[in-house]
């Protein structure tokens, strides 16, 4: 095995050296996605999609191409990541420069023809989008907006939405975010403190569930009404 060869020569590598070369690139890529991770698949704009495809292709073809050197691959990935970071920073700092504006397609049940062609949508596209968003009736759509992420948001007339508790004047009860409090017998102290609970409270909850040893608990969830849900 020749460490120099792994970094500077691509054509003469044996299987072990190839394994090491790929492993190094794998962790470089891992680090790069870790740094860029803020823009994740769920919030991909077309630009992010392009970047993800690009960086994957760079590393992939560098992994396999016998003519390419590892040093090149690492440097390219790092610089590419930095560029992406910089642009994402711009998205946050100066959104007016880089990010696209949402386009309003339907307003108060009326089509805005100009914007429809701006978003490059045919009328059939539009009807299909409405169907997918459960808005079957165009006249009941207050707003249809083409978002910068490539998805669409629909606001239907409030009279056509499910009744909410406020409409019925129903008193709200206690309501917090459900969290993992106990995992494999270990208590998460941070969550305990944040919710102003203590060990006595846990002990009381355990007793009411007939559990003597906390180590018997695989998962203890703090539910939204501040009770302990236990799964042994």
């Amino acid at each position: 095995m020749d460490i120099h060869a792994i970094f500077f020569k691509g054509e003469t590598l044996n299987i072990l050296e190839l394994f090491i070369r790929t492993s190094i690139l794998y962790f470089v890529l891992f680090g790069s996605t870790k740094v860029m991770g803020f823009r994740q698949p769920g919030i991909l704009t077309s630009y992010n999609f392009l970047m993800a495809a690009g960086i994957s292709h760079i590393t992939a073809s560098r992994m396999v191409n016998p003519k390419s050197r590892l040093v090149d691959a690492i440097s390219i990935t790092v610089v590419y990541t930095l560029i992406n970071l910089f642009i994402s920073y711009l998205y946050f700092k100066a959104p007016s420069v880089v990010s696209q504006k949402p386009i309003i397609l339907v307003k108060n049940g009326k089509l805005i023809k100009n914007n429809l062609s701006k978003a490059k949508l045919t009328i059939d596209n539009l009807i299909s989008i409405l169907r997918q968003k459960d808005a079957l009736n165009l006249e009941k759509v207050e707003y249809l907006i083409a978002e910068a992420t490539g998805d669409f948001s629909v606001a239907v007339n409030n009279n056509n939405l499910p009744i909410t508790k406020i409409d019925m004047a129903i008193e709200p009860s206690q309501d917090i975010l459900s969290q993992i409090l106990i995992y494999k017998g270990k208590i998460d102290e941070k969550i305990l403190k944040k919710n102003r609970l203590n060990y006595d409270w846990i002990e009381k909850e355990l007793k009411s569930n007939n559990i003597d040893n906390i180590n018997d608990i695989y998962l203890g969830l703090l539910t939204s009404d501040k009770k302990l849900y236990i799964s042994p």
Partner: protein
Amino acid sequence: MRVFGVIKDISLAGYLIRTFVVGIIAFFVGRYLSKRTVSQLTAYDFVLVWVLGALTVAPLLDGEISFTYIVVPLLTLFFWHYVISSISLKNRKLSLFFNGKPIILIDDGKIIRKNLKKHFINVDLLMSELRLKNIFDIAEVKYVILEPNGHFSIIKYQPHRPVTPTDLNLIAKPVDLPLVIINDGKLFEENLIKCGVDKEWLMNNLAMYNIEDITNVYLATIDSFKKLYISKKA
């Protein structure tokens, strides 16, 4: 004719045979990956899928890329992926490191600016994600959480949530997964037995739909109240 190994001038037939081999490899790569659905992928998985795709087809780009040069990297990636997945299952802290943590963006109605900044999410993007979840008034929102797979979980304040049967002290029908008893004219007797009915009962009921022969039924399901759903072959 040479197909495998490093070839300077590969013939068209050589490429076609390679395509065939790549197709088979791609099938197995996909098989390995399909354990997690695409929408559950974290940023890191997402890139990995792209890399695997690009790796697999590499012998088709250039005759000089031999199959050794793709099989070794493929196995290496699988190896590390396997190692990281098993570590993640064993240790929760490392799992959070590898797969990412959920990040709270709005906590009890308050926007956590620090977290927005850290993840380069501007207000436009936040509002647009809320709109995508049918929320046009940010004041209705109690919690927003950015999940590791990049999706936003949004929890509204209670008064803005739909009324449920509990609010009205009603008792709703329990959740029921109907069983398939006939699929494309074929009867599944074990599902009949599970519901405590027999074939005779079924035939009697089918007669009410003017069906004499099971083979005329495309799909039939039964729920725990022995209610049938029947769709005939057209």
